[in-house]
């Protein structure tokens, strides 16, 4: 146990620091900026987790917003209807429940579609996102078409960025470990991966569930930050937005996904474009990207390796 704490000391300190940081921020930033910063944190979790599925493992999921919705509603149900009021820890229980619910949904979709190669997952997740919305709209106990009001505002800058930090660090450790390299091998050449003893179906499902889990956590944070959720927040367009972050950043690159998540959260606010123009801009961005840098801003490498290679050539 002590060695486990030592190995994770930096991470634990980083997580703990989010609370004093969160307490200090309102003194320097107004509520509007603070809200954008929180949205950036949530989008980082979404982009990095989708990057595990789309970028690293190479399985094209178009339903990340659907998993976010499951996490949002499941976690809201926990704090509103299940967790005893007054008992602390409700947010964390809710986030775990939201993540677990999304992961189970990922398992159910993953088992039939990920056995197959090709675009089955894209089609299945596309349909799934819409089915989830229809189911929620028709479920009166979670607010139906009116949306769900009165979710306790338990999430804040601190909890969002604590989760984002944990998510990024854990997924980074996974992807760049002997357990994660085989995921990239599946993306690179599935047949060769299988010939090397990699159980491709099992690993694809595992990556898909892990990514879905974090989408569920992001949904839970979102619900408990704004206190009101509606299916309009989890449409196909939201899924496309997250895909854009991954593609823009460079498939498989954490730093790319994080930079793109920041850019695509801030840009629409800066330019004050309405939602109707946003999709046009994303499309143009994607087209320009495909033409000029088909492998994304950073390719599948990290900014750290990119910087060190730039330095090496400069010398």
């Amino acid at each position: 146990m002590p060695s486990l704490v030592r190995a994770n000391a930096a991470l634990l300190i980083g997580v703990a620091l989010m609370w004093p940081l969160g307490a200090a921020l309102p003194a320097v930033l107004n509520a509007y900026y603070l809200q954008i910063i929180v949205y950036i944190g949530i989008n980082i979790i979404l982009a990095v987790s989708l990057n595990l599925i789309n970028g690293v493992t190479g399985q094209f999921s178009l339903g990340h917003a659907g998993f976010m919705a499951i996490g949002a509603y499941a976690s809201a149900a926990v704090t509103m209807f299940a967790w005893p009021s007054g008992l602390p820890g409700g947010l964390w229980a809710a986030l775990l429940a939201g993540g677990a619910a999304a992961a189970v949904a990922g398992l159910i979709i993953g088992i039939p579609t990920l056995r197959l190669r090709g675009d089955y997952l894209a089609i299945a997740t596309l349909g799934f996102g819409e089915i989830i919305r229809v189911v929620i709209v028709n479920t009166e106990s979670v607010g139906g078409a009116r949306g769900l009001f009165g979710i306790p505002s338990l999430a804040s800058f601190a909890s969002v960025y604590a989760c984002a930090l944990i998510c990024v660090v854990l997924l980074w450790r996974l992807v760049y470990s002997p357990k994660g390299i085989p995921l990239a091998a599946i993306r690179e050449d599935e047949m060769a991966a299988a010939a090397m003893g990699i159980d491709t179906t099992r690993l694809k499902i595992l990556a898909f569930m892990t990514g879905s889990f974090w989408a569920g956590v992001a949904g839970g944070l979102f619900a408990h930050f704004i206190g009101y959720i509606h299916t309009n927040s989890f449409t196909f367009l939201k899924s496309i937005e997250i895909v854009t972050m991954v593609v823009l950043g460079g498939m498989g690159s954490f730093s790319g996904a994080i930079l793109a998540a920041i850019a695509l959260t801030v840009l629409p606010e800066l330019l004050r474009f309405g939602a109707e123009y946003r999709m046009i801009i994303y499309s143009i961005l994607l087209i320009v990207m495909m033409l000029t840098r088909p492998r994304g801003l950073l390719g599948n490498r990290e900014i750290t390796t990119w910087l060190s290679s730039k330095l090496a050539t400069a010398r």
Partner: protein
Amino acid sequence: MALLEARDCALSFGGLRAVSGFGLSVDAGELIGLIGPNGAGKTTVFNLLTGVYVPDSGDIRFGDRSITGMAPHQINRCGIARTFQGIRLFPNLTAFENVMAACEHRSDLSMVGTVARSPGAEAERRRIEAECLALLDAVDLADRRDTPARSLPYGLQRRLEIARALATKPKLLLLDEPAAGTNPREKIELMEKIRWLRDDFGLAILIIEHDMKLIMEICERITVLDHGEVIAVGCPAEIKSDPKVIEAYLGEPE
């Protein structure tokens, strides 16, 4: 008992009988050649042995069990590894990562241990890394460990593919034209390397190669395929003087 025993295997693609009545027996530690004219069905045999295709009929046994119908990753885990005629590395991964990807199923690294950096998982990770480096070293690629596979010269890609196959700890290694596209000097080096690998790793090796001189030189036994059927089996000297083999090679209609 033979390590690998294929009996009466057949496979058709639509109307084309690519392989029929195929039999092969490989003992532990043997170096065996599989030769035949273009389109004879050699690669298809490799695909049958590794589970890419399931034979229409016949049985393939490895060790003491039948592997017919098993998925490719299961067959690999039984102890058969291969390289591909058209190189199939993981192009955007580094040489080191290519080898590491093939260690997956052999490590008892847990997912939770990995992300929590538990001491056990860290020790296991270091062990795997050392092993991968040793394998790169065995094919003289240690100094290219961080080069993406796609940027390696052709000859080195072929060697990396062998290192990657070895990382799965096979008992039998299938090499599909490992010397194709390499220059004469590289070819001789490679063949020496293959013989050395066989001895050092205690492997049985089945090798497809068009260069007769090389095959005759290094293999103990040779199986000759023509039009999907075995036309001769024997030691190099026997194969060289077999009239059916001579006819198959000289009497090709093309």
